[in-house]
């Protein structure tokens, strides 16, 4: 009984960390746009999105810290873990490249978050359900904003269309990870904490594919490629991102302002 309870608790923590870390890492990536947006309006829009995601990460990491019960707060979890301890989806850590790819990733990810938050509204974890209720409104706006740009650029000039198609070809394989089955998914679903990723695949495709079609983009065929960031196995980009994100807390432990 104790072993089962421990395994279930570990899966619960792992499940929450995946959602938290994905928001944190994409928030960090999007923050790179601050001061570099193509126009000031979009610079602010991307930074707003980044702040929404970091806000979600703060709530979730605080919750994860309570679940873990080792006295680690949001800062310790955000800034003082090693790379394999981060459970974020690999797609979140990929470089921004250009504005188009940034928006396309936001579209693919926000559509996934929408499905997740919707399902989590009825989570047996009341705190998680409350965070979902707040976050779904943010995700809805992120999806709208990113979808608008996906269509605008995909169905835009020859140059913008080409960039968006290349971006989709690059990003699409990483979306398989949203839905890949893992023990954590299975246990979270069994305990009523939240949906297994695989159960969200159909609804996600239904929400994303029509946008890509309006954007005149060709959806690539699925391949066997599967990234495993949510299991702690990250791409070569993650270390660089963490080095920058963690620098201040590592150099000045406990520093606040």
């Amino acid at each position, binding site marked *: 009984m104790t072993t089962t309870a421990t395994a279930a608790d570990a899966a619960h923590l792992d499940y929450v960390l995946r959602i938290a870390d994905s928001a944190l890492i994409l928030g960090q990536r999007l923050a790179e746009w601050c001061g570099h947006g193509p*126009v*000031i*309006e*979009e610079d*602010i*829009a991307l930074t*707003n999105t980044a702040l929404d995601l970091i806000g979600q990460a703060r709530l979730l990491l605080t919750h994860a810290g309570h679940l873990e019960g080792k006295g680690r707060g949001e800062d310790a979890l955000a800034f003082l873990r090693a790379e394999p301890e981060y459970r974020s989806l690999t797609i979140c850590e990929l470089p921004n490249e250009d504005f188009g790819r940034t928006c396309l990733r936001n579209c693919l990810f926000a559509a996934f978050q929408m499905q997740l938050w919707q399902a989590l509204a009825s989570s047996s974890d009341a705190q998680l359900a409350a965070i979902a209720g707040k976050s779904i409104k943010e995700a809805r*706006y992120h999806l*709208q*904003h990113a979808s*608008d740009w996906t269509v*605008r650029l995909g169905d835009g000039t020859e140059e913008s269309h080409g960039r968006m198609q290349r971006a989709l070809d690059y990003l699409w394989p990483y979306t398989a990870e949203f839905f890949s089955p893992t023990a954590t998914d299975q246990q979270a679903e069994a305990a009523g904490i939240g949906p297994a990723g695989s159960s969200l695949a159909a609804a996600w495709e239904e929400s994303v594919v029509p946008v890509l079609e309006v954007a005149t983009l060709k959806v690539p065929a699925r391949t066997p490629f599967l990234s495993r960031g949510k299991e702690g196995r990250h791409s070569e980009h993650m270390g660089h991102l963490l080095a920058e994100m963690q620098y201040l807390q590592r150099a000045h432990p406990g520093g606040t302002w």
Partner: protein
Amino acid sequence: MERKEWPLWEVFIRSKGGLDHKHCGSVHAPDAKMALSSARDVYTRRMEGVSIWVVRADQIHASDPDAKPEMFDPAEDKIYRHPTFYTLPDEVNHM
């Protein structure tokens, strides 16, 4: 390549139900949808609003600043146009 500026839109925000939309700034955007979206991102980040209007700046017809004397000065000595000279019954508050 020719670089075309996006048109300018004036942004009006209603800060809460029942109040007027007030002009608060402008954004550049190629269409109304994006102007609304940008206005949301630029001007309502600190809970400033519950409703947004955007209007193409070139659709606004403004009075000529040089015509100020004939437009507005004649109202200066018509103080009786203010309703402050009427005696109101006590029951009528907040006039």
